[in-house]
């Protein structure tokens, strides 16, 4: 689903940060920002909530740990008990390395997969970036399809905060 937005282009992250804070303070409908790299302080400026990805990671890690322990218990105690050096079949120390590795592996893979799914970065999906935001421009997008959008107020505010250019554009997300 694409959105029609009013984009202001800035030439430094400081101006973008100031403009974003001002836009939210002025109750403008901020859609998103597009930057060449992660800008420190932007999550506060945008008022983003804390990512829920950590909970996905935690749950996946727990799942990995439980599956590793059950797999090892089943194979070495229930299904095919082998006497290794006279140790008990159910030996916690021997299970530690595999449990650790599977916890990390499954937590890592599931977190990355969840991130790609949630942000819809998948094979076959293509989206065009705004011009130069992967290089040296910092873009602030104001949503136009809401009632409180006022084109003159929005472009005026962005120009006041150092936007080198403002234009209407369509973004995929």
């Amino acid at each position, binding site marked *: 689903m694409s959105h029609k937005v009013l984009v202001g282009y800035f030439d430094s992250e400081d101006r973008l940060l100031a403009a974003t804070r001002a836009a939210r303070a002025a109750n403008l409908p901020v859609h998103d920002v597009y930057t060449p790299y992660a800008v420190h*302080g932007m999550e506060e400026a945008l008022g983003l909530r804390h990512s829920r990805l950590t909970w996905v990671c935690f749950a996946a890690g727990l799942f990995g740990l439980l599956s590793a322990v059950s797999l090892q218990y089943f194979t070495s105690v229930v299904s095919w008990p082998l006497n290794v050096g006279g140790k008990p079949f159910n030996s916690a120390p021997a299970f*530690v390395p595999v449990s650790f590795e599977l916890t990390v592996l499954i937590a890592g893979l599931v977190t990355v997969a969840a991130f790609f799914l949630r942000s819809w970065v998948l094979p076959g999906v293509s989206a065009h970036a705004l011009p130069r935001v992967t290089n040296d421009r910092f873009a602030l997008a104001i949503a136009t399809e809401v009632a409180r959008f006022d084109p003159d107020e929005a472009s005026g505010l962005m120009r006041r905060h150092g936007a080198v250019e403002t234009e209407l554009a369509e973004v995929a997300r």
Partner: protein
Amino acid sequence: MNVQPLALLDRPVRLWVQGLGVAGALTLAGGLVVAPAEAWTSVLVNAFFFLSIGVGSAVFLALMYVANAGWSAAIKRVPEGLAAYVPAGAGTMLFLLLGAGTLYPWAHAAEAATLGDKTRFLNLPAFAARMVAILALWTLFSRALRARSLQQDVDGSVRHTERNVATSAVFLLVFALSFCLACFDWLMSLEPHWFSTIFGLYNIAGMLCATTCAITVATILLMRAGRLPGVTESHLHDLGKLMFGFCTLWAYMWISQYLLIWYANNPEETSYFLARSTGGWSLLFWLNLVLGWALPFLMLLPRPAKRSATNLLWASGFLLTGRWLDLYLMAAPGNSAQSPGLGVLEVAGAFAIGALFVLAVTRALSSAPLIARGDPYLTESLHHHA
């Protein structure tokens, strides 16, 4: 910005610290007469616990220098202050030489006769010579790093940072080797028939964790006293991440040491863990794992937990207790009876040497501005955002 050096301990607090220190030292002195083996074990555990935090702080500084880290510039006076304890801590270790004959089995003729060629390495003159050399190196490097940093406050020259980077690279190499050797000498040789090649690395992990905790506690206390303007929860977040990482590194080393000995099941290796995981020591043995890793790991897992000063103080408390217990479990079972005699002498040693530590560190912290205004990374650090 307040950069005036000021006394950090109020007079009543300092008197309390001095009083407890003297009381601890007197009790310990009595213990050296009545129960020499237990008392010298207490000296060893406490002297090494505090000294390794001191030298660990110099290592922390060296790691920041070689990594060209910017975030830590605003708090670097804290590890510098902790590292200023190294000369005093070296004194407490040298004091241990007086008890080496009591403490170390290889110093007794009957035991030495069973050790074969190991006595070429494990004998009092060689032991003392190695200890003096190791302590001299640690003192030299930790003083050099701090002296240049203080000089930079005066002249603001970037050359001091450049020279500290070079010194740090050499120090890290010297430290890794000398610290492993120190652990083999001072701790592992308490049971001279037992050996573990990972023992040095295991102690480096524990030391790094305890050091990060000490730096974090000192930073939070100074922040709460309003002495570290510009230090925010972003800096605490980074310290929390290091604490989390190092405590997990310690657990990794713990299981690496335990697992291989458990698997191989050689009597000369398993004797160490058998003495600790059964009988009277087993409770402390498992408690050590809970305090040193399991509990802090869960406490530090969420992001907000690493930014909360109160939570970090609790986690540091558990981890420092865990590290102390870890050292106690390395040192005490070899010389003591079947069960732990954890009691008056251990607490007395902790008070005596702990008081020396607190007084030396607060003195060093008071003697220089707490913000390293000449550091080229200071601006970056004050804008740090984690």
